[in-house]
C-alpha cells in the first residue's frame, strides 16, 4: 500500500485523531486505524465507519510528525473496502462517493441538486424532510441551480480520468 509505507514509524502520538474534526463520530480514530493495521486487524477497521467519515481536510497529514499520508491511506482503504465488499452495514457513504464521481465525470464538476436527488431517492428517503430548511435557503440564495453547470475542457478531464483508470487497471 503506497501511502502505508511509513506506518511502521508511527509513534502513536494521537496528533491525527486529536486534529480530526470528525473523529468524535468515528468507531476508531486515525491513530487506531494505523495501530490496527500494524496488529493485523485491519478487516475490523475497514468494516467500521471510520474511513467513510474522513472529510479529506488533511489536518492529520499536515500535522503528522512522521509525515504519514493519513488521508491518502484513508482513500486506499476505501478502495479496498469497495473492491472486497467490506462495507459497514447499511452504509450509504460508498453510494454518495460513487454518485459524486459519476457527476464529476459527466459535467466536469459537481451538480448538487442532481447528486442529492439521486442519493435521496436511492438511499435516504428521510433526508429531504430533515434538510428542507437549509435547502430552501440555499435555493433562494441561488446556490442550488436546477440545471447542471458544465466546465470548459470537459474532454480533457475525461481523458485524464480515463488515463488514471487505465493506470490503475494496469497496476492491478
Amino acid at each position, binding site marked *: 500500500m503506497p501511502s502505508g509505507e511509513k506506518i511502521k514509524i508511527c509513534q502513536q*502520538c494521537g496528533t491525527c*485523531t*486529536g*486534529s480530526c474534526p470528525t*473523529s468524535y463520530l468515528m468507531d476508531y480514530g486515525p491513530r*487506531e486505524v494505523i495501530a490496527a493495521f500494524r496488529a493485523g486487524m485491519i478487516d475490523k477497521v475497514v468494516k467500521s465507519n471510520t474511513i467513510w467519515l474522513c472529510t479529506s481536510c488533511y489536518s492529520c497529514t499536515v500535522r503528522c510528525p512522521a509525515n504519514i499520508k493519513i488521508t491518502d491511506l484513508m482513500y486506499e482503504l476505501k478502495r479496498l473496502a469497495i473492491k472486497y465488499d467490506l462495507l459497514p452495514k447499511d452504509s450509504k457513504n460508498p453510494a454518495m462517493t460513487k454518485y459524486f464521481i459519476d457527476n464529476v465525470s459527466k459535467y466536469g464538476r459537481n451538480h448538487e441538486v442532481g447528486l442529492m436527488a439521486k442519493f435521496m431517492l436511492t438511499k435516504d428517503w428521510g433526508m429531504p424532510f430533515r434538510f428542507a430548511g437549509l435547502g430552501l435557503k440555499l435555493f433562494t440564495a441561488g446556490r442550488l441551480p436546477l440545471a447542471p453547470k458544465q466546465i470548459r475542457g470537459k474532454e480533457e478531464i475525461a481523458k485524464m480520468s480515463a488515463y488514471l483508470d487505465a493506470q490503475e487497471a494496469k497496476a492491478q
Partner: protein
Amino acid sequence: MAEEKIGVYICHCGTNIAGKVDVEEVTRWAAEQPNVAVAREYKYMCSDPGQDLIKQDIQEHGITRAVVAACSPTMHEPTFRKAAGDGGLNPYLLQMANIREHCSWVTIDGDAATEKAKRILGAQIHRLPLNLPLEPIEVPVNPNVMVVGGGIAGIEAALKLAATGKKVYLVERDPSIGGHMAMFDKTFPTLDCAACILTPKMSAAGKEPNIEMLAYSEVTQVDGYVGNFKVKVTKKARYVDIDKCTGCALCTEACVVRKVPNEFDQGLSKRAAAYIPFPQAVPLKATLDPTRCLTLTGKKCKQPCVAACGPAAIDFDQKDEEIELEVGAIIMATGFQLWDPTPETRYSYGKLDNVISSLEFERISNASGPTGGHIVCKNGEPPKSVAILHCVGSRDENYQEFCSRVCCMYSLKFAHLIKEHLPETEVYECYIDMRTYGKGYEEFYKRLMDEGVHFIRGRAAEVSDVGLTPNEEGHLVVKVEDTLLGVTRRLPVDMVVLSSGLAPRADAKSTAQIFGFGCSANGFYLERHPKLEPVSTVTDGIFIAGCCQYPKDIPDTVAQAGAAAAGALALVDNATVKVEPTISYIDPEKCSGCHICVGLCPHAAIQYNEEKGVAEVIEAACKGCGVCVAACGSGVPQQRGYLDEQIFAEIEGALAL
C-alpha cells in the same frame, strides 16, 4: 625494486568477517601472490596473540612489509602499526585492507564477498613494495587552553583545567558567564536551586588566577594545529572601562532608555540601555547596549550615566579590540538555543496570551525573574489550570527529528513548581512517551503522579481560544487525544507551557567551520566517535562539551566537561605531540611558483617563499588532506604515504585478478 617479503594477516573478527568471507580461501590465495612470504589467518588479529604473530614474523621470518586485512584503518591501524614498530619494522611499512566495513558488512553474497576481499587485499599487496619508511613529526605543545562558551560546561572545564595549574582563556559571547543554567529556577530531580549551585562556580571562575576571562568576546579566526593554535578573539566594546567599573549599577538606574527587552528574562521584562544582565553576573560589570544607547546611536542624551558613575568608568570612545592568543588545546562549550515554537502555528505561540515557552516559564517561576517568582498569567492572576505540552518541535520530521532528552524531566519539574506554588491549580502533562532515564528521574515522575498531576498520553493537536461550552469560554482550549482512552479531550486551561526541544545554535555550522570540524545531520557538533571519543572532534586538539554536542541535562554536561578537560590536559601536559607524517611536500626544483596551492590549502599550511619563488609546506600545519596534490597543474606536491605511484599500484592491484 629490491625483493620484499610481505606478511599477510587476515582477521576473522569473530563472525564479523568470517561469517561472510571465506577466510581460508583468501589466505590460500594470498600466499600465492608475488612477494608474499607468509599468509596467516586468526580469529581476532587485534588481540595480543594476534599482534604477536606480526612481531614474530618480522623477527623470525625477516618480514619487510605487512598487510592486515581486517576492519577500517580508523579502528585499528594505530594498533597494528605499533605492533610492527615493536617488532622492529617501520610502522608505515604496514598497510590495512578493510575487508569488514567495505566488504563483509555490506555484501550479501558470501562468494562475492570473498572475491571482493581478495581484490581489497590484492590492492595493498601490490602497493606495499612501494611503501617508504616514514617518521612521525614531533612538534612542541603550548600548555595553555581556550574554553569557548561560559555556560556550566565551559565553567566546569575551565575550573578543572585551572586546578591543574594550566592557564585557561574562558571566552564568552555575552556580557556575563552563566549561560542557560543561570536562567533556571530549580534543577531536576533534586530541586536544587540552580543559582545556588551555579553562582559559586561562576564566582570561583571569576576569581581563579589561572583563568583569564574574556566575557563579551567572540572568536573570529583559528589558525594552527594541535598543540599550536593561534586564535583571534574580538573583545567587543562595553563602553565601560572594566578596570574602573565596580558593578554598582548606578549607571543602570540613571539611564534614560528603560524599555529594552531583557534577553535574560526572555523579553518578559525591560532593562536599561546601560545594564548588568543579572545580579550575580560574572564579571559584575556594566555594559552599554550599542544598539539602544542614545549617545552610541548618535542621538542626543544628557548622559546621566556619566554623571552617576563615581569612578568615571564610562567611555563612549571605546572600540572593539582584536587580540591573538596562542593555545595548545581548545574546548568548545557553546551550548544550545531553545527551539522557537513560532513555526508550530497550531499551538498559537506568539498569537495567544499565556501560551509560553519553557524558558519563559523558567523566568516566571524564578524568584529573580519578572514576576518575582509568582507563577501568574499575563493579567497578574495565578492560573487555575495549566497544560504542559511535551515534544514541541521534537520527534517530528517537519522540525527536529530527535528526542531532546531533557524536556520530559523539565516538564515534570514545572508541574512540581506549579503544585508547590499553587496547590489548587490543576496541571495536565500531554506527552507521547515519558522518558525519565536518569538517576532519580523515575522516582521524580512517580512523585509527580502522587502530587496529583494529570498525565495524558497524547501529543496535543492544537491550542485555541475558541470555547464551545460555557466552561471553555474565556480559556485556552487544548485539544488532545488521550490515546490510552481512545478519546479526544478538550482541556480548558489558563496557561499553556510549550516544552520545546533544544536546538543547535543558529550559527553552530559557521562556528564549527571557523574551528575546522563539522556538524552532525541534526546540526549539533560532530564528535569523533559516538561511543569511544564523544568529547573529541575530527580536529586534533579541539574538544567538545555540553549541549553543543547534543541535548543533555546538567549532570551529563558537567561529566562531559570534565572529560573534555581531561582530554585537553592529556594533550597540553606533554612538551611535544607527534603528528602523522603522511603530509605533502613540494619539490622546490619543480615548483613554478604559480600560487594555486597556496590559496587552496584549507589549513593555511602552504606559504610562498618570495626569495626562492616557490611554495613551501609548513609541515606541522599540514593535515594531509591532499588538496594541493590534486590542484597542482604540474603534479609537484606529493603526499607522503599516498604518492601517485603508490595509488596507481593499489588500483592495478585491485583490478589485476
